[in-house]
């Protein structure tokens, strides 16, 4: 394949990645580095209630 084409392609890909990065910073993707590790463990919002009734009893009284 033409080398010139490959060069343009790689630069274009790099540019696309860079623009994506700019968007991610501007839209606040890096504002809360703590959150995702907890959100990962959450159930889907729609599923939470069903699951909740099954196994989540408030702590028993003493």
């Amino acid at each position: 394949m033409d080398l010139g084409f490959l060069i343009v392609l790689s630069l274009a890909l790099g540019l696309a990645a860079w623009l994506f990065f700019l968007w991610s910073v501007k839209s606040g993707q890096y504002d809360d580095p703590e959150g995702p590790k907890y959100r990962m463990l959450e159930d889907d919002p729609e599923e939470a209630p069903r699951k909740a009734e099954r196994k989540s009893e408030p702590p028993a009284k003493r």
Partner: protein
Amino acid sequence: MLRCDHCLLAFPEREAVRADVGGAARVFCCTGCRGVAELIAAEGLSGFYAGRRWDEPGLAADPERPVDAAAFRDAVRRVDGLAELDVYIDGIRCASCVWLNERLLARLPGVASARVNYATHRARVRWDPAAATLEGVLGRIRAGGYDPKPYTESERQRAQDAETKDLLIRLGTAFFLASQLMIYSAALYAGYFQGMEPGMRRLMEVIALGLTLPVFLYSGAPFLRSAARGLRAGRFNMDVLIALGSGAALAYSAYEMAVGGEVYFDTAAMIVTLVLAGRYVEARARGRASEAVARLSRLLPREARVRGRGLVPLAAVAVGELVEVVPGERVPVDGEVVEGVSEVDEALLTGEARPVAKRPGAAVIGGTVNLHGAFTLRVTRVGEDTVLSGIARAVESAQAEKPRLQALADRVTGWFVPAVLVLAVATVALHLVRGAPAHQALMTGIAVLVIACPCSLGLATPIAVLLATGEATARGLLARNGDVLERAAGATHVVLDKTGTLTRGRPVLREVVLFEGAPARDEVVRLVAAVERRSEHSLGKALVEAARALPGPDREVQEFRAVPGRGVRGVVEGVVVLVGSRAFLAEAGIAVPAEAIQRAAPFESGGDTVLCAAVAGRLAALLVVSDVLREEAPPALRELRELGLELAIVSGDGAATTAALAVRAGIDRVVAEATPLEKERELARLQAAGARVLMVGDGINDAPALTRADVGVAMGRGTDVTLESADAVLVRDDLRLLPALVRIGRRTTRVIRQNVFWAFIYNVVAIPLAVAGALHPIVAAAAMAASSLFVVGNSLRVRTWTSAS
């Protein structure tokens, strides 16, 4: 005693609110908690109870009290036709709290999105103004038992956030361009060995130049600006070296491109990128520090109950007005008690571990917690004049004055840069004298600059610090910024707070002195604990705690009565039991013999509290209660001494108590009865005498001193404010981490020193070649790569060293 199914507070049975929630019988401490539980069940969010981790019980706000929306109105923005509000949610204690708040808000009709930041507890809520109201949104948070507060961000904080974001964009850009650049540089290096078509080579060089220019001019702009400032001020800082090195590499390569030599665009880009990465990590850590002051102001309630005016925003409270304070509430302003009797927990502000009795005429400080009775106070100071504001100001000014430790790498560049400049100029002169053409002489001079600028110097500190902090974190030691380790390594004095730091911070039953005719020790403790269980007093808790260790069931108590500041009385299985001060017993008509007073004296002079217990109308025992030294304190202190550090105690507590504890801890430098500002001044005095101080504390009263110290270390159980104003946090609350911190610091410093050496050595070897004008391009490239590899490899040893000990 029952425990509330929602807020986990323990409460007496007669106050129980029973209800059927979510298909099961539940018990609550108040109707407010029942309301929250019903709301959670109705929204189908009961999963919250399974996931939550609450270290302390209770709600942040009464769910049934309405929120005053006026304070938030100005903060509401219009975004895409929706209303948007940033609000600080008080009472968030775990990840489940965040989950609950987000779900509760999102299920409110009209709310488009709700997102809570885990680190800052700031919620960003968007809603449709046609379908929901500000009051509705705030009410929803309050209904969940959390307290919405205006999210205030200081100007400085905002500027810092903006700076961090700006650095991130510059860094990301540099990374993308540099990675692209590597492709072409690799091709050019391959071409050097295998040969390359001149046209192709020219194309690669042009692209490489095009990729490098934005890295240098845009990503490197902060260095260029700072270097220009430094040069104008006559200072040769790190930035000058970086700007010089990358600039020289760029200029040299551009020249070589024109004459057909080898180019080093990758060097120019790499210097900028690596150093920028270090700066970004630093800026992030610093950004968190400024949260400290913001959180201090959040401690105070935002409104006060003013007699005759109802709930009034704090700003509208004037000196001389009468403010009512109910039990369990924070005192909103500084004042003087005019009515009512209570006890106030001042530990966070004064270091006094015991609750302080307040009667009419006593001064109370805003921010302290009212424990028992309701009282009315006359306001003596408001706003900026309050004690708490004074502490906030002290933290702020100490933060501003704290000298930045000049990092080792910076000190080295201080003499290295001028030396290199002189050398470069001398090289140009030498070549001119020997008859070389001007442009060639100039280029040889620039080559000296390029080869002399060690790009791995930018890595020398950050990578060692990164690895060391990672190691420290795994042991429960959080360092908030990189130079903490270097500072800890250079510490000469360790200053410890007493209450909560050297001691457990809560009283423990140490000894029971029995009198004739009294029941056995365990029986006395059980009887006394049965009565004290009903009181909220912290000394009482020590007795309850002691009884818990004994076998046998809890006893029932009748006719319980508590007299704040004096004692408690109850009937256990028909026997009248009194616990309290001597005066309390005397008032009840129980004789306290001289022998008892005599035996109590040595304890009292040692700073312990002695309670008298009477069973069936006779003095039965003296109960010695005191705050005890942490078990791990003696070995930790011994280790610190072995490391050559001098120890001292600075406490806000009384002289006798502090001195007694100092003897037990084996420390002879003691400053007692120190106010928060005096603590800070004591540290400043030590520093003026040449000491480098590592301060350890846990309370708000330590915050100014922690900020002032060369290294401020907070106990993990400390308040938010203390954690934020400290440089390092002992997450595990274990004093033995202190010597570990000093050790890791010293090792890291040693590794950094070696790194600086490795960063320089290859360049130093190559300089003579460059001066002679005989520098082979491949030697230059190898020197750059080798020094970077050595720096990274050497830094990895921080890990193996620390884990070996």
